[in-house]
């Protein structure tokens, strides 16, 4: 990665209210090129809304959002259903992306193992296949930032691990930053550079090894979850000081 410090998106002091209900308050977040950030938090914590603010799909009620001029986003929405009265094959769905070419779409679908389904109606494929199709569509835009809203929902456990594997490999291949929202704490926390715990505001954030010991994290998810996760995150070749900085062995 040529410029590690490049900031793709910076949001400052962002607040969002819908129908007089506070969805987000005082959220600050910087997304650097090439990093993987996981946003976790309970239901109704505003995770999807935060993604939409970052993507410019929703205007925040206050605060600022700054996007890099060369930002290219690949977005995988949480929900997408194609009306059954619309005849649309998987291949055609992918080609709806303005960045798509036939060759590009062939390469990406082969990599994701969905090239056999290209001629199937999009309404007919399984949940796991559909999530991979959505990921392929996001990748067709040649993103330097992939935004994934619960990429593994509706996917069984083994396929989940497979999907997260693909996603973390994407960074190596494309050098793109990844911002994802997830409920699957185990799978997410291990592959990620930075974990952000959101519950309307950012409760705590840090690298995965230290975050599970943060009092706010334990408060949010309970100590059983935190202990469980701590085991997962200790397979690293480095240690962390009290602030969470990396100390290489």
């Amino acid at each position, binding site marked *: 990665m040529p410029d590690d410090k490049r900031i793709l998106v910076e949001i400052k002091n962002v607040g969002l209210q819908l129908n007089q209900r506070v969805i987000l308050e005082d959220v600050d977040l910087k997304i650097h090129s090439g990093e993987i950030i996981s946003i976790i938090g309970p239901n109704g914590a505003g995770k999807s809304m935060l993604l*939409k603010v970052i993507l410019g799909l929703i205007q925040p009620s206050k605060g600022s959002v700054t996007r890099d001029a060369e930002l290219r986003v690949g977005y995988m929405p949480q929900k997408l259903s194609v009306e059954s009265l619309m005849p649309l094959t998987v291949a055609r769905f992918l080609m709806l*992306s303005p960045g798509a070419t036939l060759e590009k779409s062939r390469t990406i679908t082969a990599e994701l193992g969905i090239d056999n389904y290209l001629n199937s109606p999009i309404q007919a494929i399984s949940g796991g296949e559909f999530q991979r199709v959505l990921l392929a569509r996001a990748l067709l*835009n040649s993103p330097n930032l992939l935004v994934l809203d619960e990429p593994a929902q509706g996917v069984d456990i083994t396929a989940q691990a497979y999907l997260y594997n693909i996603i973390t490999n994407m960074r190596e291949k494309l050098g793109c930053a990844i911002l994802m929202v997830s409920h699957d704490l185990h799978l997410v926390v291990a592959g990620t550079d930075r974990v952000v715990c959101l519950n309307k505001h950012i409760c705590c954030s840090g690298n995965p090894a230290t975050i599970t010991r943060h009092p706010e994290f334990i408060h949010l998810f309970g100590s059983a979850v935190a202990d469980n996760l701590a085991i997962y995150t200790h397979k690293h070749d480095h240690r962390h000081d009290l602030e969470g900085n990396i100390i290489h062995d």
Partner: protein
Amino acid sequence: MIDWLMQLDFIGRALLAGLGIAILAGPLGSLMIWRRMAYFGDTLAHSTLLGLSLALMLQINVYFGLFGISLLVASLMALLVRQKWVASDAILGLLSHTMLAIGLITATQVRGVRVDLLGYLYGDILAVNMQDIALIYLIVVVVISALFYLWRWLLAATVDSDLARCEGVPVEFTNWALIIMLAAVFAIAIKLVGVLLITALLIIPAAAARRFARSPETMIIIASIFGCIAVVVGFKASLAWDWPTGPAIVAAAATLFVLGLLRKAV
């Protein structure tokens, strides 16, 4: 060509007008069912009575009145559906019947305005003149060209507007363009098939075409062809048995739909 057109009798003119609307109904009706806009169409149709009465009251061209009101109501719907206070079907129902009520009051109470309500409800395709036909085919050319130009964006925004927006598709622009096209088509088609049946004429051929199509493009083409068949068959039935023409066309389209159900989906 012009000579031939001028020599058409009222049946020839009506057929030509019906075919023009059927051609437009293919792509626009398909977009409406893909976007779940059937109720949107009904609301638009119910509002046009006010446009008609206002045009008669102000003594302006009827089409201006119809198009103006369609556009106004379509824009209102597009804006109101976005708010989250009231569910969008409630908003459409409220708007639809409020506009109909105001339209009926205007049509019956304003001095000097006399609206043939029955003709307005069922349409009067046999009364079209050459001016109507010229306008219909002008709109056919404009709408088909616009659809051709906007097609990829329209599809992307139909499947998922957030995703399309992230990929740089001008979703707002595309949606407004569609609303203007729908308003124009409703304005011209109301006179031919009437308020009660206009949505059916747009939607039924498209729904019938679904089972025969594997791509959005084949679906809109088949829908246009089905619409044209329905118009021709409806006319024949109307002439043979003295049925009202608009309802005969819609019944023919519905028959095509039922026949389509018997066929295995592609």
